[in-house]
């Protein structure tokens, strides 16, 4: 059977509790003031936390070596997405070796649950979940992000190249 | 005993002309045959045990008896496509004795009651085509062809059709498709050609040598023909000997003749200082025999069947120890990849796959699992297509790799003696 432990009478007094609390806060304050580098907190936004590659943040549309986005508009991500927040409009590419590409690829960031199903479904490593998650905006902002944001936003510095490139793919005869 | 039933007078120049041929007893057998009843001729051929000389070895008499008994007009086709690598006997027969073939065909046509026959000759044989066409003109002028042959009331037309370069047209229904002006792609069986062949009419397709052999059979009778050869493989056959022998060429020997005798006596044995490594007994589609097996083999349908190979078209290719089996198999696979007609998927893709694998093995860029892969692919190609080209491609692959496995393994380790450039030129 369990015996309930009652707190001792001294700890029920009001003042000693305050002083013990203040003591710990001052101790940490003084320690941090003297050891600036060891502090855990980051000076956001100048310093940002480095998330692990597996972190499921804002989507990234990877690009091919020639700069065009890798996505072939095969709709597998849109099909696999539980929140159905990806809309893609495919169209014909004039280069017959590319054949099909998306003229519109939009993800509704408010609906997206960041589950990563789209990343798993993609056969050509065209969509990935990036390390950042900050998508600032107020009620008026458009949270449905298109290709420009997903593939060429400034943080991506010109686009992240896909693992699978056309020439390699054809080269291996797959 | 003298076993030259067909090639007795091949050395005489005049044998090619009608006059020369008739002086040596030509077209007498035709007169005799026209007096006999067609059924009697078929019975004699069946009794003689004559089997197809083109490659399948199917009993000719039985094949003729598949024809429907009604009076629907039917065709006799002579298969002179001779695409099987290593075979060059039909060419010799057409160049030296066209009338022998024509006479045999008229007798066969009379036996099966056909009013029209074609001789389908491969396109590359321009000279034999000229010789046969000349012989046909002579026969027509002499009243041996056309209306009411020799007053017997039987009329028959014969024509030459020139092929255009496709190994697949050596296959019965492939040839029929080619004759019908289509791509030479084999037709689905059933219906078999004897029931619905050329233009959906009953058709009999026989090899040049088979039809020529009808002449001695009718002349001397079935029993005289049976004296040659073994109990199940009766008669004589022309063998095209080639490869590393001193005297390659065509030799007519009785069936059941020992393979080693053919190589050493007729063929003059191997070139000096070389040892026999392997023999391909029946053309490129026959599984290869190792030197030991070749020593025991006799040239007839049954013995080679038991040794896992086949008599095929009788093209004996002798391989001595100076040649690499890997190189040869790669050549054969390239041949079948080039000649597959592309209709059925297992053969169309399988021959390409085998060819690429063998090329990679030849260049040494392969592991020993690839050898198992070759066996696996070959086994799963066989027996699943319309015609036997996939078997003809798979059987050599299986026999080469399994019987000379050590040489293949050694090749993978040491690489190709003559170096890569030689192999690359192959493609």
């Amino acid at each position, binding site marked *: 059977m369990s015996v309930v432990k009652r707190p001792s009478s001294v700890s029920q007094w009001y003042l000693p509790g305050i002083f013990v609390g203040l003591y710990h806060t001052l101790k940490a304050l003084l320690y941090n003031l003297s050891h600036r580098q060891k502090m855990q907190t980051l000076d956001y936004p100048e310093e940002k936390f480095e998330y692990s590659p597996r972190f499921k943040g804002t989507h990234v549309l990877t690009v091919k070596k020639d700069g065009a986005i890798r996505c*072939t*508009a*095969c*709709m*597998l991500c849109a*099909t696999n997405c539980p929140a159905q927040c990806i809309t893609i409009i*495919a*169209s*014909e590419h004039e280069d*017959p*070796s590319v*054949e*099909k590409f998306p003229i519109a690829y939009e993800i509704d960031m408010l609906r997206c649950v960041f589950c990563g199903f789209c990343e798993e479904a993609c*056969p*050509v490593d065209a969509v990935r979940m990036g390390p950042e998650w900050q998508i600032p905006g107020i009620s008026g902002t458009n949270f449905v992000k298109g290709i420009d944001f997903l593939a060429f936003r400034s943080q991506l510095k010109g686009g992240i190249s896909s693992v699978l490139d056309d020439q390699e793919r*054809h080269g291996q*005869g*797959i | 005993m003298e076993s030259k039933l067909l090639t007795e007078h091949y050395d005489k120049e005049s044998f090619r002309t009608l006059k020369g041929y008739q002086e040596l007893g030509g077209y007498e057998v035709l007169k005799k045959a026209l007096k006999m009843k067609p059924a009697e001729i078929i019975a004699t051929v069946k009794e003689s045990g004559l089997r197809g000389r083109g490659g399948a070895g199917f009993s000719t008499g039985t094949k003729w008896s598949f024809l429907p008994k009604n009076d629907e007009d039917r065709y006799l086709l002579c298969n002179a496509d001779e695409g099987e690598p290593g075979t060059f006997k039909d060419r010799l027969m057409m160049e030296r004795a066209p009338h022998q073939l024509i006479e045999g065909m008229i007798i066969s046509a009379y036996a099966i009651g056909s009013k029209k026959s074609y001789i389908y000759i491969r396109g590359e044989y321009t000279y034999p085509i000229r010789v046969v066409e000349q012989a046909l003109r002579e026969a027509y002028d002499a009243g041996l062809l056309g209306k009411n042959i020799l007053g017997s009331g039987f009329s028959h037309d014969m024509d030459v059709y020139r092929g255009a370069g*496709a190994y697949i047209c050596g296959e019965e229904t492939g040839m029929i498709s080619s004759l019908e002006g289509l*791509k030479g792609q084999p037709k*689905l069986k*059933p219906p078999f050609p004897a029931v619905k062949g050329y233009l959906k009419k009953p058709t009999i397709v026989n090899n040049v040598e088979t039809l020529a052999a009808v002449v001695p059979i009718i002349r001397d009778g079935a029993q005289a023909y049976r004296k040659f050869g073994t109990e199940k493989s009766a008669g004589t056959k022309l063998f095209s000997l080639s490869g590393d022998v001193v005297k390659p060429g065509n030799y007519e020997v009785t069936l059941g003749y020992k393979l080693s005798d053919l190589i050493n006596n007729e063929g003059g044995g191997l070139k000096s200082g070389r040892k026999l490594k392997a023999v391909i007994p029946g053309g490129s589609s026959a599984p290869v025999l190792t030197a030991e097996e070749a020593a025991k083999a006799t040239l007839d349908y049954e013995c080679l069947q038991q040794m896992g190979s086949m008599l095929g078209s009788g093209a004996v290719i002798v391989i001595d120890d100076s040649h690499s089996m890997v190189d040869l198999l790669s050549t054969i696979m390239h041949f079948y*990849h*080039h*000649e*597959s*007609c*592309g*209709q*059925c*998927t*297992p053969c*169309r*893709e*399988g*021959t*390409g*796959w085998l060819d*690429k*694998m063998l090329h*990679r093995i030849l260049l040494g860029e392969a592991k020993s699992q690839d050898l198992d*892969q070759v066996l*696996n692919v070959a086994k*799963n*190609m066989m*027996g*699943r*297509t*319309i015609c036997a080209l996939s078997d003809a491609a798979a059987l050599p692959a299986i026999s080469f790799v399994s019987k000379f496995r050590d040489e293949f393994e050694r090749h993978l380790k040491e690489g190709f003696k003559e170096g890569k450039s030689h192999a690359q030129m192959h493609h």
Partner: protein
Amino acid sequence: MLKCTINGKEIEVSSGATIMEAYHKLQEEIAYYCWHPGLSVAGVCRMCMVEIEGNPKLQIACNTPVAEGMKITNESEKVKESVKWTLDFHLINHPLDCPICDQAGECGLQEFYMTYGKYNPEMGDRKVKKHKVVDLGSQVVLDTERCILCSRCVRFTEEVTKTNELGIFNRGDHSEIGTFENRPLNNKYAVNTVDICPVGALTSKDFRFRQRAWYLKEFETTCNGCSTGCRVNVFHNQNGLFRVKPIYDEAVNGHWMCDEGRDIYKHINLDQRLRHSKAGAQQVPLEKALETAKQALKAAGSSAALLITAQYTQEENQAILDFFSNELKSSNIFYWKNNEETFEDFDGLLIRGDKNPNTQGLMNLLKEKSASGSWKDLKAKVESGQIKTVLVAGPEMLSVYPDLNEKVTVLSKTQTIWLSTCEHEFFDQLSLQLPVSGFAEKNGTYVNYAGLERKIQAGVKFVAEALTLQEIVSAFRGANVSKTNEVAL
């Protein structure tokens, strides 16, 4: 009749039937590509291998005739291994570009790969590269790398349309489907080759990249393109109708349909539809429009006229004709016959000159009502002023009515109520337009040229205010047609 057992199930087939027809009749699962019930047997894909008791070698089902008491199975290990390898042979030179292939989701290779496929590809060598995105003609795009050379399309152009545009060129694994240079695949049944192509080698230009197969629902109906009345499947989802494919129908269209019929989905989509009733160019609420129409017709009484086209179902014709003869007691019923000169044409297969689905049906009803007036009579009466109010049951397929302009200019002078499915700027000259539902939005029956009844069903409902003629007639009879704006997709 022959009896045989397939996978243990007893079945009786007519003599001379092949094993494949027995499988087809029994709806038993068997893998095949080159066999097609409407074409000759090619026997080249070698997938439909079956094991027959007493026969050591596997036989192809599509060419082996059934013999009495044959025991056939395609579930034995030997058959599965054979199909698995043959499928692998199909796939070793296949480009595997399913992401950009329209056939994904309904592709024969994917389908049989799931049931028979081996999951680790063993072909390490370089694949054969062939021509991709080949323009075969106005309707069809070809990709020879995806092509498995089953020759269905070649046999189609040889046996059905007899136009011989397609052929298989070269030899071995370099063989390619194609047309000769200046003879593109432009016959009127070209898109049938896209339907019968089991893989994504032949894709339709009209449907190219517009939708994924697994996003589409389908419903069965009858094509309203001409009086043949082919049985078709319409593919749609919430964004609209996307394509039309034929369904096998013994009596009328067999396995095929024509290319014109494939465009009948276009006029149902919202962009071409008349969505609200309009008075002239002014949009008018539905109830008010119906009210004014009712008053006008009631006022005109027996001098009101009806101009009807043969584009409506039998039930609709019945309702509107009864309304005119019983309620309005008017006998001014006129039949609008379009493109008279090509009316009796027939191309030998499916396409008929009479571009209305229900001509026969309407003729029967008009004969009953003994109304034989034609457009000329109405035009004369309108110009002479005898008729002031005209109700026009306008055509649904405007493209097959080239004389539309003439009718509208004449009728714009009087008070005209024009019922139309689609929008057209000419109609703004008329006094009143009412939206009517298209063939894909209503149940009903057409009667085709041969008098056969051809059912259509309401698969979708894109325009809330669109009514059928029965609903309009019941509105004229005072029923309250509360059109909620629920839209069935």
